[in-house]
C-alpha cells in the first residue's frame, strides 16, 4: 500500500503542487495508471526519504494542466505521459506534441488500455491472435 496519498482534483492541482515546493519537497516523478474508466495520475514528492503523493483522477478525454511552469523537471515526464497515454497536457514548457518517445510509425497511445490491442509476440502468434 502507498502511504501519504492525498486526493486532489484538476482544479486545485496547481495550488497543491505549488504549496509543496517552499516546504523543501523534491519533485520525484509522476505516474500515470489506466484504471479503465479514468486515469490515475500520481505526483510523487520526496523529503528526507519519505514519499508524499498526490492522486489525481482524470476522466478519459480530458486534458491535464501541466505543472512544468512550476517545476521545470516535470516536463520530461509530462511529455512521456502525453505520448504513452494520449492525454493532452496543456501549457507544457516544451511540447513535443506526442513525439517525445514515439515516432510517426509507432503505435498510438501504447499504454492506454484499448480492448483487443496487445503486443503480438513472435514466439506465440497463434495465442495472441485469439485474444483479439
Amino acid at each position, binding site marked *: 500500500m502507498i502511504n501519504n496519498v492525498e486526493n486532489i482534483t484538476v482544479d486545485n492541482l496547481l495550488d497543491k503542487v505549488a504549496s509543496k515546493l517552499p516546504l523543501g519537497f523534491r519533485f520525484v516523478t509522476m505516474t500515470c495508471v489506466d484504471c479503465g474508466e479514468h486515469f490515475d495520475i500520481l505526483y510523487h514528492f520526496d523529503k528526507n526519504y519519505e514519499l508524499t503523493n498526490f492522486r489525481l483522477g482524470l476522466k478519459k478525454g480530458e486534458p491535464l494542466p501541466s505543472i512544468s511552469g512550476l517545476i521545470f523537471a516535470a516536463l520530461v515526464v509530462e511529455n512521456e505521459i502525453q505520448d504513452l497515454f494520449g492525454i493532452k497536457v496543456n501549457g507544457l514548457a516544451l511540447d513535443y506534441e506526442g513525439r517525445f518517445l514515439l515516432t510517426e510509425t509507432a503505435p498510438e497511445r501504447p499504454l492506454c488500455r484499448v480492448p483487443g490491442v496487445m503486443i503480438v*509476440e*513472435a*514466439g*506465440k502468434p497463434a495465442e495472441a491472435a485469439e485474444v483479439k
Partner: protein
Amino acid sequence: MFTLIGNVFKNLRSKYATRLYPYEVRESFAGSRGKLEIDPDICIYCGICAKRCPANAIAVTRKPDKTWTLDPYRCIVCSYCIDVCPKKCLHMNAKHRSPE
C-alpha cells in the same frame, strides 16, 4: 603532468592484458551460464519450460512426435527453465555457444 608515464613503462614490460581470441580461449568459470542443454532421456515433454520461458525461446510438442526445440537466438540464458523443470532434465553448459 606525466602522471601516467610510470604506468606506460610498466605496461611495456608486462605481458598482454588481452588474448588472441580465436586461438586462445579463456576458460569458463565453473558456474557460468553458457548454453542450455537437455537430457532427452529424462524429459517428459510436459512443456512447463516452454510456458514459463520469459523469452518464448523453447517450443515443446507432444503430438505427433515428442520434440523439444530451443531457439538459441531468442534464449536469454536466464536459467529460469532449469528452476521450474519438474524432472531436472535441463542444465547449463558452462561453455558459451561458439560463433559458427
